């Protein structure tokens, strides 16, 4: 196998044994990027020099007798929503054209400290708003399984890069499914951790109460490895939890017998493509064969997830995105302006794409006097009901199972003019963000020749358990080992 085809844990073993050097790994990955990036367009910026320098440092440390950690020398792609000191960070938006943050996001620093060379910044829907990566202001990323199809979104660049062998692992962010849905559509594994498990400091905010950073990787074991680096309290993030972090790799025992799984009826009903549903049902059967007790559960409030999400997330976004005004950084209009408010309006009008503008307007409306109680406040109340549905379901189930996405990857441009259809792509993933719980997406079969994702949801801070279930499934199957032919 070529170096770019290996998983992070396979690379880790070869690096530790001295079979390969970190520089060799980085060079092999960059060679692969050179080979396929023209077809995939996963990256917005490449940081080759920096990556090779980091790789050299890891090799030097190993040569000096140090044992620098499991992922030292394993390169990583970083979604462009994460601040990288001195390196272009645009969030896929014109309004942040040329923006180089003066600081690293906590997760970026943690990866750096773990000795993971940064390959570059991956493409995304503008400000993480979208499910296809078509909303990027810069380029359209293509699904490595079928270049005429989308990779999903908003972390489409990260997912496509991992699937195409352009990165062994990558970081994404997930507000309504933005790690899990592209992972599913690209046939890889992706984890959205519990809200508060991973620091959001340096993650450019879309919806602060929903955003979480997590890994995209070729298998669950790699997700666990990266989680060992990412998870933990950060004094810079007041919402990060001060709860002990287990060793996620040590938790991958392969034993899931006796675990109780629930399948929410609301996530297996209308809207799920029959072929996808069939694949997911087969995967659930496989879990039962591994010794899990599976039964259907009812979670009636999940039906309201989409409207609740499209009030809460845009409201927070409208406020979070107010800072892009052309005064301090990013895009400033070159038109004549009458006054400072005109400067704000023109800069923002030019800098934001249509989907972002739409959500800002939606959020502004939801927060406005006279509408707040009817929309934002009501949505927060329903959000509490959704959480209570999960609490009830988790009272007698250890994990919940559903499809990740109701469809396989759709064609580029296919849903661009149908915003509602586009938003339905997140119908299975959004409830997880509203409840703040962790969820994993793993490949579980093929439909129409394209990957299908299985979503495994867990109780708050039980990432270890859902990772164990996902890993056990991957030990028994080989869907995760399938690679697109590029």
């Amino acid at each position, binding site marked *: 196998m070529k170096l770019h085809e290996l998983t992070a844990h396979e690379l880790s073993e070869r690096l530790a044994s001295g079979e390969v050097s970190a520089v060799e790994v980085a060079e092999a990955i960059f060679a692969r990027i050179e080979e396929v990036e023209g077809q995939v367009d996963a990256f917005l910026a490449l940081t080759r020099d920096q990556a090779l320098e980091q790789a050299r440092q890891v090799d030097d440390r190993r040569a000096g007798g140090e044992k620098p950690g499991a992922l030292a020398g394993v390169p990583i792609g970083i979604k462009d929503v*994460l*601040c990288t000191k001195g390196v272009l*960070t645009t*969030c896929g938006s014109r309004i*942040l054209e040329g*923006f180089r*943050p*003066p*600081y690293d*996001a906590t997760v970026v620093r943690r990866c750096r400290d773990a000795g993971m060379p940064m390959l570059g910044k991956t493409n995304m829907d503008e400000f993480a708003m979208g499910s296809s990566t078509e909303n990027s202001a810069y380029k359209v990323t293509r699904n490595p399984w079928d270049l005429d199809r989308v990779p999903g979104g908003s972390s489409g660049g990260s997912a496509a890069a991992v699937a195409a062998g352009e990165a062994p692992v990558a970081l994404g962010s997930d507000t309504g499914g933005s790690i899990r849905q592209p992972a599913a559509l690209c046939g890889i594994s992706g984890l959205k951790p519990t809200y508060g498990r991973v620091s*959001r*400091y*340096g*993650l*450019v*905010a879309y*919806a*602060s*109460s929903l955003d979480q950073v997590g890994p995209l990787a070729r298998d669950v074991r790699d997700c666990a490895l990266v989680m060992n680096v990412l998870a933990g309290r950060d*004094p*810079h*993030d*007041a*919402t990060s939890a001060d709860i002990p972090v287990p060793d996620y790799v040590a938790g991958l025992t392969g034993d899931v017998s006796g675990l109780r799984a629930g399948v929410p009826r609301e996530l297996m009903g209308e809207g799920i493509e029959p072929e996808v549903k069939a694949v997911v049902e087969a995967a659930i059967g496989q879990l039962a064969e591994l010794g899990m007790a599976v039964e259907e559960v009812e979670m009636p409030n999940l039906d309201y997830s989409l409207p609740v999400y499209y009030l809460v997330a845009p*409201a*927070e976004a*409208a*406020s979070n995105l*107010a*800072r892009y*005004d052309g*005064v*301090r*950084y990013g895009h400033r209009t070159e038109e004549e302006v009458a006054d*400072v*408010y005109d400067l*704000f309006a023109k800069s923002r009008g030019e800098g934001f794409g249509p989907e972002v503008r739409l959500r800002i307007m939606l959020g*502004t409306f939801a*927060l*406005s*006097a*006279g*509408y*707040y*109680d009817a929309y*934002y406040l009501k949505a927060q109340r329903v959000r509490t009901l959704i959480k209570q549905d999960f609490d009830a379901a988790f009272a007698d189930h250890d994990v919940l199972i559903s499809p990740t996405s109701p469809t396989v990857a759709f064609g580029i441009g296919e849903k661009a003019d149908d915003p509602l259809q586009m938003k339905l792509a997140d119908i299975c993933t959004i409830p997880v963000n509203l409840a703040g719980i962790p969820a994993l997406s793993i490949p579980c079969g093929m439909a129409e020749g394209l990957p299908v994702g299985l979503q495994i949801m867990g109780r708050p801070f039980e990432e270890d358990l859902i990772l164990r279930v996902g890993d056990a499934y991957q030990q028994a199957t080989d869907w995760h080992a399938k690679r697109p032919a590029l």
Partner: protein
Amino acid sequence: MAPTHGAVRRARLPVAGRLRSSRMPVIEQLPIPSPSQVMLMALEPLVGLEVHVQLATDSKMFCGCSTQFGAQPNSNVCPTCLGLPGSLPVPNRRAVEYVIRTAAALGCTVAKRCRFARKNYFYPDLPKNFQVSQYDEPLSFDGHIDLNVNGDEVRIRIRRAHLEEDTGKNLHLASGSSLVEYNRCGIPLMEIVTEPDFTTAEQCREYLTQLRLILRAIGVSNANMEEGAMRAEPTVNLRDPETGEATPMVEIKNLNSIRSVYEAVRYEIERQRQAVAEGREDELFQQTRRWDEANGATALMRRKETSDDYMYFPEPDLVPLEPDPAWVEEIYASCPELPAARCDRFQEQYGLPEYDARVLTESREVADLFEATCERFEGAAKIVSNWVMGDVMSLLNEAEVAVADSPVTGEGLAELLALIEESVISGKIAKDVLAKMFETGKGAREIVEEEGLGQISDTGELEAIIDQVIADNPGPAEDFRGGKDKAIGFLIGQVMKATKGQANPGLVNEIMREKLG
């Protein structure tokens, strides 16, 4: 938050309906009486004050940047207070403590659980284009300050004291361009809002004076209005006590001293009274006015057609604030005696005149120095008061030394005053000794002994000097004998001169009169 003269609540009425709500009647609903009607004279002013206080913490509200005043522009900044993409706020525990301390001093209740909220509006001095503040869940509420204004007891109710972050500053250049300075951005700000309980400008002045004293006494702010560490915005309108109907609310801005608040409120009450009296309704509408110091008048800044919509919502980047009850209790228990109470006690316990008591209690440190001296000094408290207010303060002021850092302690001052009481030194010599104490940090007795400054009270020694002075000045001696009592002053002066001020003046007087008699 702009004060509304009504209960704090989530007013999410459609904007058009809000103006017509009962708590903010429009002018059309107020029957304008003719000047001859007695009712007019009964219109009572309703004045409320919203005060912003910069808290004297070392670091900012949500980041570790310094709060130092007067630093190089845009040097006390970081990703968080600049609102850079991806930055997050972390609350300053000390700032929370200072609000709780203020709550204790103002008799407020501290919320068991409260939240920060985002106040959304666009302005270049606000880098996130929202301010982290508090809205429907303030940290503390329902307190009061009791004032004594011209002998009348007035209770001003405090509606709330909450926590927020300060904004930056815009500097407009003559060239037409503007600069933005973010050092101030993110400094912890406490907002204290009263009910509209003031009926006169004098009450406003006394309230601000007392509030400033309290804030300084509890050490939460230097409350300096000129530096902008304390900012006051009054709201003024008039109400008919019979019908309860009121004129539209006027907010006044650009006030940078207690005096200007006093003058602006006085002016505005009168302006509104006259407008009503003369039937000029068109001048009475909801508006923001600017105090024009040079003209001594308020001037229209902007009409407020609708109430501002700040789209408040709970700040999702922060978890709810739940101060530990034991901690709150501890802060309440350690709340020091407040200046007004201490002023009363000084008059009672030490028999001081009101003036002295007030001056001494204006600063907690000065009052402490006074009491520490009294504790060790057996003479009259008024003597201590005179020395503290006089020589001690002027030496400190000259040297620009804070009272807390004074090299002369209460103990040291008591020792000096005891030397006067014991007639070891004169009051005049004592002034020099005090200056030396400041300079050297040495004790009074040590200085007096080292420099031989003890008074000459040896009658034999004094008699010889007096004889000599009488002999040298036969003219004045003769004048005295001839009945010119004043002439003795000159002769005593000569004795003091000959002894370099060390003669005991009382004793000299006595012996001189004997000899000339």
